């Protein structure tokens, strides 16, 4: 079974802090994704990566950056956390293109005070 793990289930940070969210997948998947999930808005893509050291902006990249130094690990960075970044963050991975199932981690619920 594919396993996608996220470093924290719950996180509380203060405004202005630098925040790192880490995601690891164990199935040698090419693609990895970061989404944020907000009530009534569904999933919105922040960034994705289709290879090591490659990254592409999604629909809402502002205020975020990512890093993919190893194939299995994809990090989301909030350079200076703000209260409007309070959300559920979901990481996902997939093998190939389009027709492949996305496998999701359990999510990190981030609260920025």
């Amino acid at each position, binding site marked *: 079974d594919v396993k996608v793990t996220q470093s924290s289930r719950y996180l509380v940070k203060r405004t202005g802090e630098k925040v790192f969210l880490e995601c690891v997948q164990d199935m040698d998947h090419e693609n990895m994704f970061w989404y944020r999930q907000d009530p009534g808005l569904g999933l919105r893509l922040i960034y*994705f990566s289709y290879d090591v050291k490659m990254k592409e902006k999604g629909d809402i990249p502002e205020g975020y950056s990512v890093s993919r130094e190893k194939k299995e690990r994809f990090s989301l960075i909030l350079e200076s956390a703000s209260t409007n970044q309070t959300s559920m963050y979901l990481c996902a991975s997939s093998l190939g293109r389009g027709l492949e199932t996305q496998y999701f981690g359990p999510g990190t619920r981030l609260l920025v005070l």
Partner: protein
Amino acid sequence: AQSVTQLDSQVPVFEEAPVELRCNYSSSVSVYLFWYVQYPNQGLQLLLKYLSGSTLVKGINGFEAEFNKSQTSFHLRKPSVHISDTAEYFCAVSPSSGGSYIPTFGRGTSLIVHP
């Protein structure tokens, strides 16, 4: 570009009743179609997907969906729901051609099953 519309944000239903969760999409190219489920405090997991072939797709936990190309719909159905089906359901589409393979998700439908 593609878009997904889930017509109901919330669907309340009694246990053992049938349910249909509606999903419509628009796209300039052919698409693959997915339904994911998110149980409370968990990530999403795949229920079923349509890639090609038979338009009626069966998934896990007794769910099925029918692809209707003329109506650009992919509605999810279950003939008899259980309390344990209470969850958030997401419809998603992904282009099957054209280079971009990034899926687009709907806003989700909250299925609430009452005893």
